[in-house]
C-alpha cells in the first residue's frame, strides 16, 4: 500500500500528520526546488559560527604568529622570528614542553589503565554494579574549578588529609604543591580522581562483547587470563585507542589545575604549555609570540592525529 505522491509542481498539501501553517514562506519550503537548498539553511548557523569563531581565528593565529603584535602600539611583520626565539632563546618554552610531556606520559597511561581495570572489575558479575559505577563516576562530574580548590586543601602540607593518611603509614609530610619534585605528581594524582568517566566508557564497551565468545572459549579450555588476553583486549582496542587519543590531546592542554593550584610554580615546575601561552599572551601581552606558541601546539596535535590514524591499523583490531 503506497501513499499518494504529492503534485510536485504545486507541492499540494493533503493535511495529515503534521501540516505546517499555510503561509507563502512555508510553501517555499515545501517546493521541490527548495529541497536542494533547504539543507544549507539548516546548517547555516553552524557554518557561520565555524567561519567566524573557528576558521578565521585559526587562520589569524597563523598570521599573527608572524608578527610582534602586542595589543597596544604598532605591530610589525617579523617573519619567523617568533619561532626562532621559541626554539633558541625561550627557556620557558623548553621547560613547558618538558613539563607537559611529563604530565602526558604519566597521567594518560595511568588514567587509561586504571579506568580499564576498574571497568574489568566492575564487569565481573558483582552485585551493585550501578552503585559502584555511580560512586566512581561522581568525581568526574565535579566542576574542575571546585575540584582544584578542594584538592589544594587536600594537598596542604600541614593540614591536608593526604599527608595525614601518609603520617598514619609513618611517612613524613610531603610538600605537595610547594616543592618542584612533587608538584607534577600531585596534579597527576588529582587527575586520577576523575577516571570514572573513562571507566563508564570501557564498561559499556565490555558489556557489548557477546557472552557467546567467552563461553566458546571456556568450552575450548581457555582460562580467565587467556580469555582476557585473546578476547577482551583485542575487542576493546578500538575503544581504548579512541580514548587514548582523546586523553593525550586533552592532556596536552592541561590548564585549569595548574593555573588555579600552583600558578605554574614552584620554580616553573608546573608551567604547562597552555599556561605558558596564557602568560605570554595575557600577562606579558606578547600576542604575536603567544600565537606562534599556539600554532606549534595546533600543528603538533594535527600531526599526531594523522600519524596515529595511519598506524592504528597495525595495532587496533577491527573485527
Amino acid at each position, binding site marked *: 500500500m503506497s501513499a499518494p505522491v504529492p503534485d510536485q509542481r504545486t507541492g499540494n498539501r493533503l493535511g495529515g500528520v503534521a501540516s505546517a501553517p499555510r503561509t507563502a514562506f512555508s510553501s517555499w519550503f515545501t517546493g521541490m526546488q527548495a529541497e536542494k537548498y533547504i539543507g544549507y539553511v539548516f546548517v547555516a548557523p553552524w557554518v557561520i559560527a565555524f567561519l567566524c569563531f573557528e576558521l578565521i581565528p585559526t587562520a589569524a593565529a597563523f598570521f599573527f604568529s608572524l608578527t610582534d603584535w602586542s595589543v597596544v602600539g604598532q605591530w610589525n611583520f617579523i617573519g619567523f622570528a617568533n619561532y626562532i626565539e621559541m626554539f633558541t632563546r625561550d627557556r620557558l618554552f623548553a621547560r613547558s614542553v618538558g613539563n607537559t610531556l611529563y604530565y602526558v606520559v604519566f597521567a594518560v597511561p595511568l588514567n587509561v589503565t586504571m579506568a580499564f581495570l576498574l571497568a574489568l572489575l566492575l564487569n565481573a558479575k558483582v552485585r551493585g554494579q550501578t552503585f559502584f559505577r555511580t560512586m566512581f563516576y561522581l*568525581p568526574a562530574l565535579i566542576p574542575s574549578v571546585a575540584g582544584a580548590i578542594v584538592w589544594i586543601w587536600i594537598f596542604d602540607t*600541614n593540614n591536608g588529609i593526604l599527608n595525614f593518611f601518609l603520617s598514619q603509614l609513618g611517612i613524613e609530610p610531603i610538600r605537595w604543591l610547594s616543592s618542584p619534585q612533587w608538584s607534577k605528581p600531585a596534579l597527576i594524582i588529582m587527575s586520577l580522581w576523575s577516571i570514572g568517566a573513562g571507566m563508564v566508557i570501557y564498561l559499556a564497551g565490555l558489556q557489548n562483547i557477546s557472552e557467546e565468545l567467552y563461553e566458546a572459549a571456556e568450552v575450548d579450555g581457555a582460562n580467565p587470563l587467556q580469555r582476557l588476553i585473546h578476547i577482551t583486549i583485542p575487542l576493546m582496542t578500538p575503544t581504548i585507542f579512541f580514548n587514548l587519543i582523546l586523553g593525550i590531546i586533552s592532556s596536552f592542554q592541561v590548564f585549569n589545575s595548574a593555573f588555579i593550584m600552583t600558578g605554574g610554580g614552584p620554580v616553573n615546575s608546573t608551567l604547562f604549555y597552555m599556561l605558558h601561552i596564557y602568560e605570554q599572551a595575557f600577562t606579558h601581552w606578547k600576542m604575536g609570540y603567544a600565537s606562534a606558541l599556539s600554532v606549534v601546539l595546533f600543528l603538533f596535535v594535527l600531526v599526531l592525529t594523522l600519524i596515529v590514524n595511519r598506524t592504528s591499523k597495525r595495532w587496533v583490531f577491527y573485527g
Partner: protein
Amino acid sequence: MSKTPAFHLGQILTYFILIAGSITALIPLGWSISTSLKTIDQLAVWPPQWIPNPVAWNNYIDVFQQIPVLQYFGNTMVIVTAWVVGGVVTCSFVAYGFARTQFKGRDTLFLILLSTLMMPYVVRLIPLFMIYKELGWINTFLPVTVPQLLGRNAFYIFLLRQFFIGLPHELTDAARIDGCSHFGIWWRIVLPLSKPALATVAVFAFQAAWDDFLAPLVYMGGNPDLRTLALGLFAFRAAPGQVAMTHLLMAMSVMMIIPILLIFAFGQRYFIQGVTMSGLKG
C-alpha cells in the same frame, strides 16, 4: 559454576577493591564538606577531625556576606542558558540538516565538523580575543554566549546527528508526503522523539557551562561584576592579603558542586548514556 576456593577469593578481592576504591573516590568530597562546616580555628587541628565540633552551619551564610554568590550564580546561569539553548535548539537544528536533508557537500562538511573536535581551543583563543576587542565585546557576556547560541558546539551536533540518523524514516517520510516542510518535521516530529538525546545534550551543556573557566577568564575577566561562580571561587582564593578562609572556600566549593550532583541524581542515565555515546567508537 564450580565453587572453588580460588573463585571465592577472586570475588572477595573484587568487592574489597571496589569498596575501598569507592571510599577513596568520595573522601575528597566528604573532606570538603567536613571542612566547610568548621570554624577557622578548627582548621589547624591535628590530627584532622572528620566531624567538626561545633558544626558551623553559619559558614554557609557567611559566604554570602563575604562574596556576592548570588550575583555570580546569576552570571553563571546566563552562560548556562546560552549553552543549553544553543545545544538543544541550534545544534539540533543543524544536526537535522546533516542527518535528514540532502545537499551538495553535506558529508564533506560533516567531516570538517568532526575534525574541529580534535583541534586545540587555544589556537583560537588569542585571535578571538583580538576580534572581540575590536568588536567591543570584551568584558561583556557576548563572547561566551553568542558562539554557543549559533551552535558552535560541534560535539552536540555530532551526538544529535547520530541520534537523528537512527530515527525511523517512516514517520518523517509520511510527513513529507503529507506536505510537511523540513522545518515542520524538525519541530513537530524529530524534536519530540529525541527527548533522551536532547536531555543528554542539555546536561552536558549545563556541566560544561557551569565549569567553563578559561573563556570567561580571558574574555570577561576584567569585569568583576560579570564573574561566574568558577571565576568567583578562584578570585576568592586568590584574593591578596587575606587570612586563608579555607572553611568558607570549601563552603563555596560545596555550593558549586551541589547543583551538578542534583542534576546527576535526577538525570543519571543521560550522563551515562552521553558518555558512552561519545566514547564508544561508531
